[in-house]
C-alpha cells in the first residue's frame, strides 16, 4: 500500500506552526529577561539615589553647623551666629514667631540638591536638612528621592575636665595629686557657715590625705596617645585618643576616692579609656571697643586692653574683660586679686608665668570668677615656686609646665592646653561648677534623627 502525501502543503503548514511556536517561546523568554534586567536597573538606580540623598542631606546639615559655629572660639559671641546669617547667603524670615533661616543649594552634575532650615529654639539651634536626588523609575520617567535629617545642636563646655590637652600629659616625681570639688556645693567645698556670703565654697587639695569634700572627677584627657601618670594620685579618669596608653608608676593610682585613698596602685577598673576625640578651636579676640589701661587697679566694669600684668593688680568691678597682649608674669609675692563679687574674663597672648609665691586670683579664690582664654600666641603657661592659681584656662596652643617642689601653692580650676608637664609636689583641683558655666567652646550635634514621614 502506498500512502499519498501532499508534501508541499503539509510541510509549509508545519514549518509555519513550528516557527511561530519557537518565535513565541524565544520572544517571551527574551521579554522576561529584559523586563527583569530593566527592573533590576531601576531598583539599583533608586537605591543609589536613596543612599546619595542621605549624604546630600548631611551636606546641608554641615552648612547649618558651619553657620552656627561662625563665632567658634569666641565664647562671648558664640551665640550671636544669627547676626551674620544674611551676609552668609541665608534667607531670614519669621515662622510661628521665631526667626527662620533657610538656604538651598543645587550641587550640580546630577548630585542632587539640599535645602536647610534653621531656627534658634530655647534649647539651642535646630537644623533640618533635606536632600533630594533624582533617579529613573521607567524608560522615560524619573522620580525624586528625598531624605530628611533633624539635628539639635548644643554648645559644649570649654572646661569639661581638670586637665585636657592636645598632645601629652606627663607627671613625674612624688606627691602629685589631681582631684575635684564643687564650689557650688556645700558638701563638696568649704563654705562659710554664716551668712553664707559670697555664695560659693573654696577648697584645699590635701594631697593623698583623705579629704571630706573631695570628689573624683579630676579627669585628665588627651587627644594624643600618652598619659604618664608616674607616681601621681588621680581622683578621676584618664582618657587618651584611640590606641593611646596610660602608664602608671609603682606608686601611682587612678580611680575613685575609695580606690585611691585605700592606697591601691594602678588604674581602677573602668577609670581608663581610649576614646577621646575632641576638636579644640582657637580663640579669637572679641571685636569690641577696648579701653587702653596701664594702671594696677580696675574699679569700673568694662573692656580694657593692656600689654601685660607684671605686679600687684586688683579688680573690684563686677564685670571686666581684659585683653593682655603679653599675658601675666608674677613673681616675688605679687598677686592678682579678684574681688568677691567680681567676674573677669581675660584674653591673653604671650606667656603666663606664676612663681615666687605669686597668686593669681588671690581675692576670691573662686575659679569661676576668672576665665582665661589663651590666644594662639599664648604658647607657655608656667606655675612654679609656690605659685598659686584659681582660674579656668582655655589655651589650646600653650605648653603647660607645673613645677611643684614648694610647700604651698597649687592650681584650682580647670586647664586646657597643648601639653602638660607636672613635677613633684603639684596639686591640681578641678572645680566642677565650671562645666555648668555659660563658657562654651562651640556648637556640637546633640541629637541626630532621620525623619521618615512625608
Amino acid at each position, binding site marked *: 500500500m502506498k500512502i499519498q502525501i501532499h508534501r508541499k502543503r503539509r510541510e509549509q503548514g508545519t514549518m509555519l506552526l513550528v516557527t511561530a511556536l519557537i518565535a513565541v517561546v524565544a520572544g517571551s523568554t527574551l521579554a522576561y529577561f529584559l523586563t527583569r534586567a530593566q527592573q533590576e536597573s531601576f531598583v539599583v538606580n533608586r537605591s543609589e539615589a536613596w543612599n546619595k540623598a542621605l549624604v546630600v542631606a548631611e551636606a546641608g546639615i554641615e552648612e547649618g553647623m558651619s553657620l552656627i559655629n561662625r563665632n567658634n572660639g569666641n565664647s562671648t559671641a558664640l551665640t550671636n551666629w544669627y547676626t551674620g546669617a544674611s551676609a552668609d547667603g541665608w534667607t531670614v524670615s519669621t515662622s510661628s514667631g521665631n526667626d527662620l533661616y533657610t538656604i538651598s543649594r543645587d550641587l550640580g552634575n546630577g548630585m542632587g540638591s539640599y535645602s536647610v532650615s534653621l531656627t534658634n529654639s530655647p534649647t539651642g539651634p535646630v537644623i533640618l536638612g533635606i536632600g533630594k536626588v533624582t533617579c529613573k523609575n521607567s524608560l522615560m520617567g524619573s522620580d525624586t528621592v528625598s531624605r530628611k535629617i533633624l539635628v539639635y545642636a548644643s554648645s559644649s563646655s570649654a572646661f569639661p575636665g581638670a586637665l585636657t590637652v592636645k598632645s601629652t600629659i606627663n607627671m613625674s616625681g612624688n606627691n602629685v595629686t589631681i582631684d575635684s570639688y564643687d564650689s557650688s556645693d556645700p558638701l563638696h567645698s568649704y563654705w562659710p557657715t554664716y551668712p553664707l556670703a559670697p555664695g560659693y565654697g573654696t577648697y584645699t587639695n590635701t594631697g593623698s590625705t583623705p579629704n571630706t569634700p573631695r570628689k573624683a572627677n579630676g579627669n585628665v584627657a588627651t587627644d594624643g596617645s600618652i598619659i604618664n601618670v608616674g607616681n601621681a594620685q588621680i581622683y578621676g579618669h584618664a582618657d587618651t585618643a584611640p*590606641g593611646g596608653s596610660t602608664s602608671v608608676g609603682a606608686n601611682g593610682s587612678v580611680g575613685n576616692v575609695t580606690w585611691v585613698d585605700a592606697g591601691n596602685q594602678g588604674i581602677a577598673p573602668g577609670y581608663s579609656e581610649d576614646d577621646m576625640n575632641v576638636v579644640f578651636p582657637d580663640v579669637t579676640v572679641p571685636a569690641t571697643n577696648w579701653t587702653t589701661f596701664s594702671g594696677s587697679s580696675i574699679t569700673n566694669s568694662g573692656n580694657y586692653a593692656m600689654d601685660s600684668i607684671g605686679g600687684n593688680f586688683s579688680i573690684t568691678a563686677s564685670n571686666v574683660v581684659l585683653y593682655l597682649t603679653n599675658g601675666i608674669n608674677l613673681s616675688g609675692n605679687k598677686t592678682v586679686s579678684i574681688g568677691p563679687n567680681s567676674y573677669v574674663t581675660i584674653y591673653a597672648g604671650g606667656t603666663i608665668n606664676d612663681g615666687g609665691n605669686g597668686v593669681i586670683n588671690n581675692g576670691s579664690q573662686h575659679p569661676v570668677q576668672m576665665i582665661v582664654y589663651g590666644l594662639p600666641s599664648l604658647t607657655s603657661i608656667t606655675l612654679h615656686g609656690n605659685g598659686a592659681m584659681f582660674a579656668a584656662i582655655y589655651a589650646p596652643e600653650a605648653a603647660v609646665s607645673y613645677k611643684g617642689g614648694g610647700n604651698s601653692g597649687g592650681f584650682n580650676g580647670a586647664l586646657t592646653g597643648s601639653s602638660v608637664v607636672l613635677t613633684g609636689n603639684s596639686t591640681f583641683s578641678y572645680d566642677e561648677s565650671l562645666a555648668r558655666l555659660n563658657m562654651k567652646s562651640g556648637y556640637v550635634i546633640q541629637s*541626630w534623627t532621620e525623619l521618615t514621614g512625608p
Partner: protein
Amino acid sequence: MTLMELMISVGIATMFVLGVIILTQFTLNQGLFAIANYTDLNAKSRQTLDRLSRDIRSSSQVTAFATNSISLTNLDGTGFSYTWDGSNQLVRTYAGSSTTMLTNCDYLCFNIYQRNPSNNFIFYTATNIAQAKLVDVSWHCSRQYLGAKLNTESVQTARIVIRN
C-alpha cells in the same frame, strides 16, 4: 515511503525534538531561576541594608553585642535588635514584633568599633559596648535550585556610624 519508514522517521524525529525541548527547557529554567534568584537576593539584601543602616545610624547606643546579634537603643529610649540564628534567618525585633529580614543567610557577622579612624580607613576596635560608635556588618545569602546552591550572592558589607 512505506508506513514502517514513516513511523521510524517520526519516532526518531520525536525523540530528537523532545531532547532538544528538554535541554532547552532545562537551560532556560536554569537561566530564569538564576535571574529570579539574583533579583530576589539583591532586593532582600538591599532592603535589609537600607533598613539596618537607617536604624543603626539614628540610634543612640549599643546595649548588647555578639557577632551574630546586636541590640541598640533609640533616642526616645525604645530598643531594637538584629539577630542571626546561625544558619538561616536574620530577624529584626522592634517593640515586641519580629520581622524576618533575610532568609537562606549562610553567614553574618557584626563587629563594633570606635568612631575614630586610624590609617587607611581602619577603625579602632571598641573594647566594650560603651565605646561602640560604628557597627560593621557582613553577610551572604544563597538560593537553591533542584536541591543545589545555584547562586550565592557576594558578601554584603557595610560600616555604619552611629550619629548620636
